[in-house]
């Protein structure tokens, strides 16, 4: 089975795989997670605001994003972002957007829907009495959320947020459909150039497995350490 397995092709392409590919994957994961959590928290606050004017559009957005495959969304935004850019900047024609910005917008907006549901569950896990107590102390909505509810919601949801980040990390491999050199894209390019599909895809699988496995193990440890004893 491994008689003509060529380890050398992996060693030769390591710099390309990690400097170009893994850097792209990890940067995209980090920025999309940060953006997704911020935007997702805003969406969660909108959904829980009790004002239909805010709650309905947020619910519609979340349900739309959650019922469509990520691959389709990647295509959508790949073609849509230049037009959005044109609209925002008032340019003459659709602006040129690089692959990184395009995928960053896609993943931020897509994952925001999932982070929204996580944060919503987190906010709802806080006893209502705490909100009443904060208001009784004279705290405004912003102060109540910023100092009482959200810090606890984040803490309660930290393991779930981390799990979602691992899913996001795995999902970034889908930018392959835009021929971007993320980690899998880089591996695939080497594989096709050198005709070494077996080696490169197995290696990519091992790398993804090790990172995701270690991270999900970390999430479990974190869950044990941050669990609040009630």
């Amino acid at each position, binding site marked *: *089975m491994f008689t003509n397995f060529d380890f050398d092709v992996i060693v030769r392409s390591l710099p390309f795989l990690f400097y170009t590919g893994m850097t792209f994957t990890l940067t995209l994961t980090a920025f999309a997670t940060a953006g997704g959590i911020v935007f997702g928290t805003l969406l969660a606050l909108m959904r829980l605001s009790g004002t239909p004017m805010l709650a309905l559009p947020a619910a519609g957005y979340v349900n*739309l994003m959650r*019922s*469509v*495959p*990520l*691959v*389709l969304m990647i*295509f*959508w935004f790949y*073609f*849509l972002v230049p*037009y959005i850019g*044109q*609209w925002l900047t008032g340019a003459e*024609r659709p602006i040129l957007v690089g692959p990184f910005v395009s995928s960053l917008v896609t993943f931020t907006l897509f994952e925001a829907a999932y982070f929204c549901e996580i944060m919503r569950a987190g906010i709802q896990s806080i006893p209502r009495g705490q909100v009443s107590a904060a208001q009784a102390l004279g705290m405004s909505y912003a102060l109540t959320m910023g100092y009482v509810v959200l810090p606890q919601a984040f803490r309660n949801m930290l393991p779930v947020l981390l799990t979602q980040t691992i899913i996001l990390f*795995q*999902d970034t*491999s*889908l930018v*392959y*459909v835009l021929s971007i050199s993320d980690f*899998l894209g880089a591996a*695939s390019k080497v*594989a096709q150039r050198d005709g070494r*599909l*077996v080696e490169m*895809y*197995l290696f*990519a*699988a091992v790398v*993804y*497995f090790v990172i*995701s*496995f270690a991270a*999900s193990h970390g999430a479990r440890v974190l869950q044990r350490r941050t669990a609040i004893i009630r």
Partner: protein
Amino acid sequence: MNYHWNWGIFWQISPDASHTYLQTLLLGTFWTLATALAAWCLALFFGSIAGVIRTTPFPWLVRLGNAYVELFRNIPLLVQMFLWYFVLPEIVPEEIGTWLKQLPNASFYTAVVALGFYTSARVAEQVRAGIMSLAQGQRLAALALGLTLPQSYAFVLLPMAYRIILPPLTSEFLNIIKNSAVAITIGLMELTGRARAMQEYSFQVFEAFTAATMIYIVVNIVVTFAMRAFEKRLAVPGFIGAKQQAPAH
């Protein structure tokens, strides 16, 4: 916006010369659903086995089940699809490899197998959680009655567990429909693939993707409603989610 809208495009003949663009999208929907359903059967079968062995009293079986779940959960679906499609035919004996490569509809079978095993790990988690949520006494009572371990699973534990985990299984089923779009990378012409092809041939990007998005939403709504009716019928009385009994006056 200087984009040229043309909604009439759906009634024009596509480059395959026999179907309109709308018909090609509906054909794509058929392949999406066929892939999802076939993969779902695989996922339920292997997921149930893996989930059950993780709750047995044999440590080595539990470890095997855990390893199975970790393996399929920690590798991205796209990479798994490539492994089944490009790598498997190369590492099996040559005759089998050649047979696999010459299989008609190879991308369909590969997508079904890849999606099935990927989702089976998630189903296994749910099955395990469902069995663990039952009172320990049920298992002990079944064994005390003289049922063998397989019998206690088949007649006592699993029938309850499946009814409890039906709602999370519904969302896994919705996921498998969405995840089938990943098969576009191995050349399966499912809904997303057809929309992409339509965009490439007709240059009507937004019409093609709008139609595909609408179809996904409709499928999603139909499945959700069907499953909700099913869940209501099968809900276990007395559990959260079961229809509340009217309080006695």
